[in-house]
């Protein structure tokens, strides 16, 4: 059985300089309590893998505002001028990956694949420095897997084994990241007794989850 830890205990385990995946899409489905605690504990030099950096003052944007991050791997930063400012000022390294490619790279990391071949980005700026592989006369980019030390994810429900269920568009990158990190910390809205999520409705099996915290944030 996995009993919820406090947000403070869970985040205390993350060293400065860690590579962390954070679920969510423009903050929706992001583990807000965990993010706020990263800021509160003054973590530094993080490498963050996520879809985006949300906005200034919101979700992953809070980590950017606090200068906790030295590198982000994301699909866009258009909604966060502070991310763009730090990038231009060379305070922050930004690696852009097309969104579908980013999802597959995270999945590849979690699924033990050495990479995937995608048509997305061929002959564009996104192809720079990447190997081009031909299969049956068509060209594909070889995109590499992503892994992390920690995944900070958000689920709607968890049972005490850590079986997770996500809600609507708050799912996004969360189940992929649950596979791709050494340590998985999930923030949940609701804890349920084991057996209350039917096997066919479990989105992420509990064996993948290391720590559970109850959400303290108002979404």
């Amino acid at each position, binding site marked *: 059985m996995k009993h919820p830890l406090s947000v403070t205990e869970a985040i205390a385990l993350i060293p400065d300089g860690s590579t962390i995946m954070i679920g969510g899409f423009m903050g929706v489905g992001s583990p807000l309590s965990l993010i706020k605690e990263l800021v509160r504990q003054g973590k530094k030099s993080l490498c963050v893998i996520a879809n985006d950096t949300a906005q200034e003052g919101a979700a992953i944007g809070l980590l950017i505002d606090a200068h906790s991050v030295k590198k982000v791997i994301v699909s866009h930063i258009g909604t966060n001028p502070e991310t763009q400012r730090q990038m231009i000022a060379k305070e922050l390294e930004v690696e852009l990956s097309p969104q579908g490619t980013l*999802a597959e790279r995270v999945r590849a990391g979690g699924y033990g694949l050495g990479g995937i071949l995608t048509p997305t980005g061929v002959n564009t700026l996104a192809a720079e420095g990447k190997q081009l592989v031909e299969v049956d006369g068509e060209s594909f980019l070889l995109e590499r897997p992503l892994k992390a030390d920690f995944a900070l994810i958000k689920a*709607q429900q968890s049972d005490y084994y850590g079986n997770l269920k996500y809600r*609507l568009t708050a799912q996004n990158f969360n189940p992929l990241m649950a596979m791709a990190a050494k340590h998985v910390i999930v923030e949940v809205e609701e804890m349920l007794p084991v057996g209350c999520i039917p096997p066919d409705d479990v989105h992420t099996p509990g064996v993948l989850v290391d720590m559970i915290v109850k959400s303290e944030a108002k979404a």
Partner: protein
Amino acid sequence: MNGKEIIARRIAQEITPGSLVNLGIGLPTMVAHYVDKNDHVFFQSENGVIGIGGFPEGMENPSLTDAGGSFIGVLPGAAAFDSAFSFGLIRGGHLDMTILGGLQVDEKGHLANWIIPGKMVPGMGGAMDLVAGAKRVIVAMTHTAKGNAKVVESLAFPMTAERRVDLIVTEKAVIQPTEDGLLLKELGPGCTLDEVLDLTDATLIIPDNIPHMQI
């Protein structure tokens, strides 16, 4: 009728009943308003849902938004999924149409819509996958920006994908990129051919008879 409404209404006519359509954030989102509900069009948002519809005012849920982070509603029969599946639908050729905004389209039909180097680096988000993977790519954009033509001979900004887009719809014209170049198909309401040529920085193929949009 303002320019954006013209564009949205005209693009709505391109949508086939029962098809799966992705709407980019901003102007493309407006298209949904002009599609007949009885056509049962399935709207996808790439952040992970098929079946967008209805107005959420007073019924917002923090776990249900579009790719721009705006609250949405869903219709009965909707389906939610993760980002890998969402882009599997897109990249795998299951998406009948995507409607995207654009900075520029050139004579080869290449779209630029994700970066102005040295000035604005929003990132490509889902745009590269959408243009590479959708069965039909329709660009929804105003004909000019600050007086500058957006249909151009060659792109000033990096392209989004090497795939030729299928249709460009502005408030002034409907233009179909073809192997031979940009074919002018329709003129906007009240627009003249000379006006379109004047506001376009690319060579257009001009057929004998160019109808006006019927909207």
